[in-house]
Each structure stands twice: as C-alpha cells, then as structure tokens.
C-alpha cells in the first residue's frame, strides 16, 4: 500500500530534516506552509464552534423577544446607546489596528507590529472599561437580576417587571460572554506582543498573529450583532 521514502533514495529526493527548515516549525509538520495552513484552518473550525455557541443564545434571545416584545423594548430603552455606539467604533478601530498588525507581521516589520498590537490592546481595554462602566450604571439603577433588581417604575415603560428582568438577564449573559471572549483576546494579544518584543515573530513565523487576528475579528463581529439586537430594538427612532 505504501513505500517508504528511503527505499529508493535516488528516485525520491530525501525530505530535508524538518528541524533544519525553520526553528519555528513544529515536529508534526513537514514544512512551515503546512503549519500555517493548519493553524488558520484550526482557528476557522474553532470559530465555527463559537458561532454555534453564540448562536444558541441568540436564538433563545430572539424567541423570548418575540414573546415579550414590550418588556424587551423597555429594557433596551434603558441601555446607554451612546456608550454602545462608542464601543462599536472602538471595536471597529481595534479590528483595523489588528489587521495592520497582521500585515506588519507578514512583512516582518518589528516596530509597527508591536505598535499596532499595543494599540489593539489599548482599544480592547477601552472597550472593556466602557462595558464595565455600563454595568456599574446598571447596578446603580438597580437593574441587575438576581442581585438588586428593583427597577424604577418609569423604566419599565408599562411592561411586566419580570419580562424586563428577563431582558436584563439576556443582556448581562450575552454581553458578559462577549466580554469574557474580549478578555481572552486581550490576553492572547498580550502574549503576542511579548513574543514580538522578544523577536519570536518573523516573516516565516507570523502565523500566530494571523490566527489571533482571526479570533479578534470574530469577537468584533459578535459585537456587531449584539449591538443592534440589544440596543436598537426599543423603537427609539420611530
């Protein structure tokens, strides 16, 4: 069924020893392109699982939103749309800096790489800062289910209290899950920055940055769905 490569050394040129090709090549791969390919593909498969993961919550949200529209609209009204929009722009900007970082890595440009990675991290942290500010405001308004949910009557806008509470539950769950992914992403980028600082990222070995970029863009896209679903359904702009 097969022949080993060594059985006719003249007919098939011997493969170069994997470890002489590039120090970054892992032992299970033959050439660096295969490693890069596998890494990218692996991240895409992982993102597919994340789509199903978030998809499950989004589906439940949509089901309950159609059942309890008034409560969900009231809850949505209570969210800070300016802050949400600012978070949107911050994330889009961070995706831009991330793409520039991947480009710099591919070109082997050391300083721009570190610069853009740092910028992405800063923007990510800014996003989280705004998110937690909004959480804190919700805490002050007594809108945190399970902890201190005693909303003011006007904020219910005529909807039954428990439907507004259900909305807030989904709000915290969905944005919290997203924030968790952001934190993981920031951690990942910090590790990339450190590796870049130590000179471990090169033109041959930039794939880690590219894979991190894929992840970061995905987290951005989730926010692009979350923002309208959560913040824009209140019929503010009728």
């Amino acid at each position: 069924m097969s022949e080993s490569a060594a059985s006719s050394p003249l007919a098939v040129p011997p493969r170069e020893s994997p470890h002489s090709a590039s120090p970054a090549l892992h032992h299970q791969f033959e050439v660096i392109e295969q490693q890069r390919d596998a890494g990218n593909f692996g991240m895409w498969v992982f993102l597919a699982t994340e789509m199903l993961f978030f998809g499950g919550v989004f589906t439940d949200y949509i089901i309950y939103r159609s059942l309890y529209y008034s409560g969900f609209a009231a809850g949505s009204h209570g969210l800070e749309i300016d802050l949400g929009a600012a978070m949107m722009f911050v994330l889009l900007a961070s995706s831009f800096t991330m793409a520039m970082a991947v480009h710099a890595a591919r070109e082997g440009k050391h300083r721009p790489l570190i610069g853009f990675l740092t910028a992405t991290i800063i923007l990510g942290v800014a996003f989280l800062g705004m998110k937690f500010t909004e959480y804190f405001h919700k805490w002050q308004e007594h809108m945190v289910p399970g902890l201190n949910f005693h909303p003011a009557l006007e904020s219910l806008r005529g909807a039954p209290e428990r439907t507004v509470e259900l909305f807030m539950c989904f709000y915290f769950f969905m944005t919290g899950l997203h924030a968790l992914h952001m934190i993981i992403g920031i951690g990942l980028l910090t590790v990339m920055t450190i590796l870049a600082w130590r000179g471990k990222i090169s033109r041959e070995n930039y794939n880690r940055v590219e894979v991190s970029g894929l992840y970061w863009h995905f987290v951005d896209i989730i926010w692009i769905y979350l923002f309208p679903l959560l913040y824009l359904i209140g019929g503010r702009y009728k």
Partner: protein
Amino acid sequence: MSTAVAEVPVESRVHYLNANYGIKSWLFTTDHKRIALLYLGSITLMFFIGGTAAVMMRLHLIEPAGALVQPETYNKLFTMHGVVMVFFFLVPSIPATLGNFLVPMMIGARDLAFPRLNLLSWYVYITGAAFTLYALISGGVDTGWTFYTPLSSHYLNTHVIATALGVFITGFSSILTGLNFIVTIHKMRAPGMTWKRMPLFLWSMYATSVIFVLGTPVIAIALFLLGLERLVHVGIFDPAIGGDPVLFQHLFWFYSHPAVYIMILPGMGVVSELVTCFSRKKPFGYIFIAYSSLAIALISFFVWGHHMFVSGQSVYAGFIFSALSFAVAIPSAIKVFNWTATLYKGSISYQAPMLYALGFIGLFTMGGLTGLFLASLATDVHLHDTYFVIAHFHYIMVGGAVMAYLGGIHFWWPKITGRLYHDGWARFAALVIFVGFNLTFFPQYMLGYLGMPRRYAVYPAEFQVLNVMSSAGASILGVGYLIPFVYLLWSIRYGPVAGANPWGAKGLEWETPSPPPTDNFEEPPIVTEEPYGYAEPEHAHV
C-alpha cells in the same frame, strides 16, 4: 523492514512507551499515543462507575417494590448511570482512545495537528469528570441525564449545578478533539493519500468530529442557561414566570441527538476495519460507506424533535421530524448491507475482534430497526418513555458501540502494547458478553410494549418476570466485561511479543513496529495505492 523489526525483542528498541519514564513524561506528554492511553485509563474508570450504578439498578429491579434502595436513591442511580455513560464514556470512548492513537498513524503523520491542544483536551476531560464525581460523592443528582426543566431548574435540591458544570466542561474536551481531527485529516495526509485512499475509520472520525464541533456548543448553552436559571430564577424555563420548559428540551436534544451519532459513527468505522481485515477483502462499496458517514452526520442535526413527539409540539413539526428520522436510517442500512457483502467470497477468520464486529452488525441491525418504531409517530406515542426506548438505545450503544469499542481495542492491542492477548479467552468473553447482553435487553422491548415506563423505582407485579430475566442477563454481562480486563492486563507483561502486523492487515499503522516509535514512522510514508489492497499477492505479512 517490518520482518526485521518483528525479531527484535520489544525491550531493547526505543518506542513511545519506553522513550521516557516517569510520571511527568506522561502527564506532560504531547505524544498522541500516550494521550490516548491517558484517556483509556480515565474512560475505563468512568465505565466501571457507570456500570456499578447499572448493576445496582438491575439488582434493585428484581422486586416490584424495589429490592435495594429508596426511590430517591434509585433516581440518583439512573441519573449518574446516564450522565457518566453518555458524557464520560461513550462520547469520548473510541475517538479519544483509538481515534487519538490511530488518526495520525493511519494518515501517515507524526502526530495530530495540535498536540498540545490534545493534551489540554484530556485535562479538560479530567476536570469535568472531577466536578461530576464530586456531585456523585457528595450525594448525587436526580434529574435524569436529560435534565428536563422545570424539574431540574426549580424543584430539586441535589447537585444539579455541579453535574451540569462537569458536563459543560467536558464538552470542551470533545470540541478540542474534534477540531484536532478535522484539521489533521484535511491538512496532514501523507503524500499520495487522497480522500478516497483514506481508510474508512478516518471517514467516520471525520464525520464524528464535524458533529463534535457543531453540536457540542449548543448543549453548553443549554446547561449554562439551566445553571443561570437555578441561580437567578428569572424565568427562562419556569412557566410560572413566563418561561418555556419545552425550550430546554429543544436546546438539549439539538445536541443530544447528534451526540448519539457521535457515539455510533466511530464504532462503524472500527467495524469497517475489522470486517475487511478478517475477511481479507476490500470493503464492498467503499465510497457508499464513506459518504454514508457524512450523510448521517448531516441529517442527524435535523431530527431532534423525534424525542418530543408527545411534548405538546405541533403535529406538523412531528411530521417533519418523523420523515427526517426515517431518512437518517437509510445510510446506516447502506453500511450494514455493504459490510455483509464484504464477507462474500472472502477468507474469514474468527478471532475475537471479528466476533465483536459480527456481533455489532447483528445487534446494531436490530437496534436500528427498533428505531423505526420510534420514528413512526403513531407507535412512538405508545412506546415513548417506556422500556422499549431503553432497549432500543442499549442495543445500539452497548450491542453496537461498546462491542465495536471492545473489538477495536482487541484489534489494535498488539499495535498499542506490542503484545498478543490470549485469543481463546477473548472469544469466550465476547460470547459471554453477547449472550448476557441479549438476555439483559431483549426482555426490555417486551416490557416497554407492555407499558412499563422508564425511570421507575417500583413497578406493577405483572412486569416482574421480564425484569428478573433482564437482571439475570445483566449479571452475565457484568462478568463478561470483567474478563477482558484480566487477560488484557496480563498480556502486557506475559503475552507473546506481537510483530508489526500480527493480523496481516492493510493500513499505514501496520507498517510500523509494535509498539510504534514516538514519531510513528521511521521514514514518512508515501501512498501510491488504493486502501485495503488485500487481493495483492506480494504483501504477505506475518
């Protein structure tokens, strides 16, 4: 080359087992073969835990009023049996042990695409198992492995969250394994190995991995929401405050139905390898068997509602799910016919792996056909939530998946350990298991048709005879499972040395020594021929 290796005693050659010693070399290994063995140990432990619960249940059910425990304890026993067996034994069984060991070897690679993720997946599995064992030790959980709400979200005081968390965490282990296999199969095939030159085991592992990756996140969400509901009581599943308890069922079964195909597809892959080797024939209808695996994986995502025909869902939804459930039976039938046709004009030998494979084909056929009773709306109304369902899925999971697992373990044991086990004892154990299995579960079809519901700690006296028959069978089955434990472990030390290919099988994994070196192949292989070349005369391996 392989004949030369067979003469060298195992101990003086360096291979993956003796390349390093010490517990750190095992706990921090990235060698897929060692990780497979780590999984083998853990899932065997979980199998015996789940099996102990089953033994206690069958002992209890000898008497209509219950012979052993209080109803509350019985409820905990069947819950733990289900949770442990489904999530901690069946789902990982073949993929994490045989899959991890064989996927790189069958493909001609040195390891999987992401060896460190592979090790991580084992640690994640262990962490999840720890949470569930904690729940077990500190008093158990009695939701049933299906965790239906609002019972599990609002009406029970047992360790629901710990158990749900354990299952949630272990789900990530499945996702990582599936991800690894998909990337490996796509990107790391040896030169010359096209998709259609892959062994059928790899097609099955690929289809299984697709389900791992797409289905598991949804049960993660279901269990997460369940935990949230228990903590915050906000009304996701509690109808008293506007939630929908049936929504949980949809979320749960969206994963758990494809999950049953996770549990059977790898077994089908193993059977394809066993039937071909022990009849020295290439598979009849290779491409049909391969595509059937993919078809099963695809259709499996669209049939979950057949668990909910009497849940109050609409009649029209019932029609769609019923029709699709019949559709998913067809690819499995295709496989059974093709395996049978493979035997035609073959050269058949009856070592233990083949006995397990043949047992699989027969029992899976019966189990699969009883699935038609449940796919058909009118009969499902009568049979849902009775012992008929229990008999159906045990025929597939135990008569099918576990027998395939044991067959695979026996088949690749010489490759994994470098030793041969005593085939006489192995055949005897296979026979005991086959007889014990049928005696245990066939009466349950009748019990179900007669109307005995499942999850009953006490039952009307008229069902006693069949229950006692089933429990008698279970004792035989239990003994049957213990026997391999003995002779397999014995063989590691005292069994005769196996050569590279004791069965005369085709496949890249048989062209490397037993046990294999850490990097699997002394030289990376190049594939120039079709798989299963049993008809070629010159490859006469010992």
